């Protein structure tokens, strides 16, 4: 399945069941943070995105994202990552969301769903996103 499907799936996973959304960044950099809220107005999920382009060769830069205003001791997250910004699964490239792929030809989800855990301390957590990577953080 094409890489755009992975992006659209991640966006849908971020928006699912949400009642409202806001952008936490001002849109002027390559680093995005969006948050959705449930029908009671409680934070539901955050989507972090490092839109720096990575060609697949040379060093792959990384950006630290610090989230504040969190509750609890930890939050889970799923990562959208590919070999590069131009990775094409139908041409043998690798793209995964939460460690899973959509099988070429039938679009069935395969692989074990993998969550990362971010430690929350004093309401803060830090995640490192490589260039051309996104992280979906589950806030409840």
């Amino acid at each position, binding site marked *: *399945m*094409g*890489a*755009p*499907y992975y992006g*659209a*799936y991640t966006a*849908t*996973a971020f*928006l*699912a*069941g*949400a*009642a*409202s*959304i*806001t*952008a*936490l*960044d001002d*849109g*002027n*950099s*390559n*680093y*995005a*943070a969006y*948050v*959705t*809220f449930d029908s009671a*107005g*409680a*934070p539901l999920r*955050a989507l*972090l*995105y490092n*839109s720096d*382009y990575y060609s697949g060769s040379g*060093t*792959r*830069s*990384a*950006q*630290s*994202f*610090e*989230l*504040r*205003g*969190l509750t609890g001791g930890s939050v889970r997250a799923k990562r959208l990552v590919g070999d590069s*910004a*131009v990775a094409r699964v139908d041409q043998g490239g690798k793209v995964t969301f939460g460690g899973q792929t*959509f099988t070429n*030809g*039938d*679009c069935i*989800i395969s692989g074990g769903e993998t969550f990362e855990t971010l430690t929350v301390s004093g309401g803060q957590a*830090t995640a*490192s996103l490589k260039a*051309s990577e996104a992280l979906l953080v589950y806030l409840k």
Partner: protein
Amino acid sequence: MAPILAHVVAALVGVTSTASAVTFTIPSQAHTGSYKYAPVDPAPVGISFEFFAFPSYFTNVTATTQCLSNWKDLTGVWPPIRIGGTTQDRAQYDAKTSAYVVYSVSNPADAPASLTFGSSFMTLAGKYGGSVVVGLNRGKNNIQNTIDAAKATVNGMSNLLAIELGNEPECRPRAPLLKYRRLWDIELTGKIDYPSNGQPIAGGSWSPAIDAASQNNWAISVGSAVNKRDIIQAGNSNDSPPKWGAAELIATQNATVKQYIHNYAHHNYPGGSITSLMSHSGISRNLHVFDADVAAALKEGKQYIFGETNSGTCSSFDSLS
């Protein structure tokens, strides 16, 4: 010493960290602070299927329903779909055919220059578990045929969200992009849609004002013929606002027209390189182009959607998507 060593080590493993973190504070409650909030639809992401290829996608391509079902598993709702595009303005309704679509092409990867479709097209669309927008023909200027198709659409589909009357009335191929073709691209035979020597409806002069008058007349004619209010997905332009878009269209609409309008749609293909297309600042800049159109539609109490959006089209690049 230690920080320098850490930096050297980081360089050796091929990762460099940007000096400082970007920091974001999550509001504890929606609609607080200085952020702008927007409501989220239960199924906010959908898929558009090129008109002539729709039946094949749903009867011959196994992945189609599974790909849509994967999103349904996330949201609990089947994603909305839209059936339309360049070939909607090349299609003629034929109530007598039992086929979904009838056309001939010399190369299987080509889009047809003309085609007919039968009522089974709408029956198939009516089986889909989510909502459907169906795009019908305005380019050929055969309003009676479009009315016949609209009646079959309304009668055959309980999941119908809206009907489009015409696709990208202003779209024309840009010469440098004609090197590439995809399955549903405009045939490279010199034909262009709507303007100039393209579609019959644009045979004379054509402009946003002339198109708006045409859209409005057709909305009233088709809406009243099928006896439905809130039935038309209006706009469907590709060129950017303010020249083409919801605001300029709404400015021409009276109350009679507006009662037939369900929502406004625009197509958004920013074009460019992958670097620029994926850039968050580029995306933000691109989306703000539509601020006034979104506001104009919301002021009418109507939704505003991207009826099509991707990287590049109106003859796009194979290397983009």
